[in-house]
């Protein structure tokens, strides 16, 4: 039955439902974008660490609780540089010092550690860096190595936190929206109680009345959804371009459509339930 609900129900009855769906679509878009950003950034970080190894030349001895003097640290650096000199798997070495400012008197200067970042040859044999690590550890005791895997584990842990946050946001907003949606539908149907009973007494079957109200709902939901998708596109496309996020539009919009469909289904079920409940006492 193609009964136009606008000729029967107040046109304003379900208008604010559209706004709710719009709001949800934008939040859903935001969380999807957050997930994608996390994914992209993580990927590029992991790529960065793939051929990198870091080494810290310590400024103190943990066990003996002694602080080395700067000269000893520099000697260690020289030793390491000698070991790796000409090694085929090392492409370049970056040495970072945390020198104290020059205006501080040299005498009171606290010795500072030295950080080294090795760029490794991408075509090296698996675990080839282990050989260098062992050699350095034998000669220079006070060092801390970080292999690519350790950096990657750190990154993955951070990424997981972000993913969890974005997914929780989406789920949370989804549930709140569903709840508010249900409440609104029920309130509106209660307000339409007289109309409901009148058209029932006019000989409209329950299923017709249910579908009448469902069709009244679907319009604002579709409008809210469409405007929400457009808003999402406008709001987030600069971010997508700027952050160079890898985005699969089909997947992204597919996900939003899924949420959207869930709302339609939830609204339909609640409408059917509430209408049938309201007419339960009628013969």
């Amino acid at each position, binding site marked *: 039955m193609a*009964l136009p609900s606008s000729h*029967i129900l107040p046109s304003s009855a379900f208008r604010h439902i559209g706004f709710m769906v719009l709001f949800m679509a934008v939040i859903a878009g935001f969380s999807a974008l957050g997930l994608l950003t996390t994914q992209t950034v993580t990927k590029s970080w992991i790529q960065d660490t793939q051929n990198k190894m870091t080494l810290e030349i310590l400024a103190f001895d943990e066990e003996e609780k002694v602080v080395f003097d700067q000269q000893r640290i520099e000697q260690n650096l020289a030793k390491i540089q000698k070991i790796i000199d000409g090694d085929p798997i090392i492409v370049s070495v970056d040495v970072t010092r945390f020198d104290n400012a020059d205006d501080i008197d040299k005498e009171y200067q606290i010795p500072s550690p030295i950080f080294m970042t090795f760029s490794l040859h991408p075509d090296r044999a698996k675990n080839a860096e282990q050989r260098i690590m062992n050699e350095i550890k034998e000669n220079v005791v006070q060092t801390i190595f970080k292999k690519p895997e350790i950096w990657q584990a750190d990154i993955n842990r951070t990424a997981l936190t972000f993913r969890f946050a974005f997914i929780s946001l989406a789920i949370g907003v989804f549930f709140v929206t569903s709840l508010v949606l249900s409440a609104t539908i029920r309130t509106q149907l209660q307000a339409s109680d*007289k*109309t409901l009973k009148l058209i029932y*007494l006019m*000989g*409209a079957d329950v299923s*017709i009345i249910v579908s009448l109200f469902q069709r009244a709902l679907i319009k604002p939901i579709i409008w809210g959804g469409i405007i929400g998708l457009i808003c999402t596109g406008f709001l987030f496309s600069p971010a997508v371009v700027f952050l160079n996020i890898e985005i699969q539009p089909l997947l992204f919009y597919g996900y939003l459509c899924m949420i959207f469909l869930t709302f339609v289904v939830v609204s339909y079920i609640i409408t059917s339930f509430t209408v049938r409940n309201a007419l339960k006492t009628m013969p």
Partner: protein
Amino acid sequence: MIELSHVGLRYDGGPEVLSDISLTIEQGSFHYLMGSSGSGKTSLMRLLHMGKLPSRGHITMFDEDVAKSSRPKRAALRNNIGVIFQDFRLLHHLSIYDNVALPLRLLDQPEKKIKSAVTEMIKWIGLGEYGHVRPPFLSGGQQQRVAIARAIITKPKILLADEPTGSLDDPMGDSIMKLFEELNKRGMALIVATHNKGTVERFPHPLLKLKAGHLV
């Protein structure tokens, strides 16, 4: 067409407001339902349009036992019955046109057919100019006529009118009675609840008298 046999009605386990009602409504008949306020006129009307089921006895409508019918079946039966409620029950958010068109739309009639039928109907009740106006902006008599138009737009086999002249002065009430007699001449059965003796005298028809829930 409609047959009640030893029908009783009580609301929510309360006392019987209708007791042992037996009557037959024939096609094309015209009855008044008379009785003082609280005698059970509206309650009997409710049974006749299946707004309530009897708590005892049997009602047969168009050869169907009402109590045994399914809901969709009852919905189909209701399509043969036009009701003018004592309180009109017009939808205030709709125009007069949409109020009158409502039953046709529920029957999923094509909009073109609805337009010609409703336009003609509104003209017939003398409200041709008021199609776009909403009920709260009309007088009681005008609203009454909209309620009549809505009840008869589907050409039901029987029209139930609950005190249709109750709130109107005599000339206005008489004009509505003339509408009813015209409908009756076209073959529609009518039951008109009233306690206005003047109306009954000027437009004589058989009486069904209710007294404290009993037919007398």
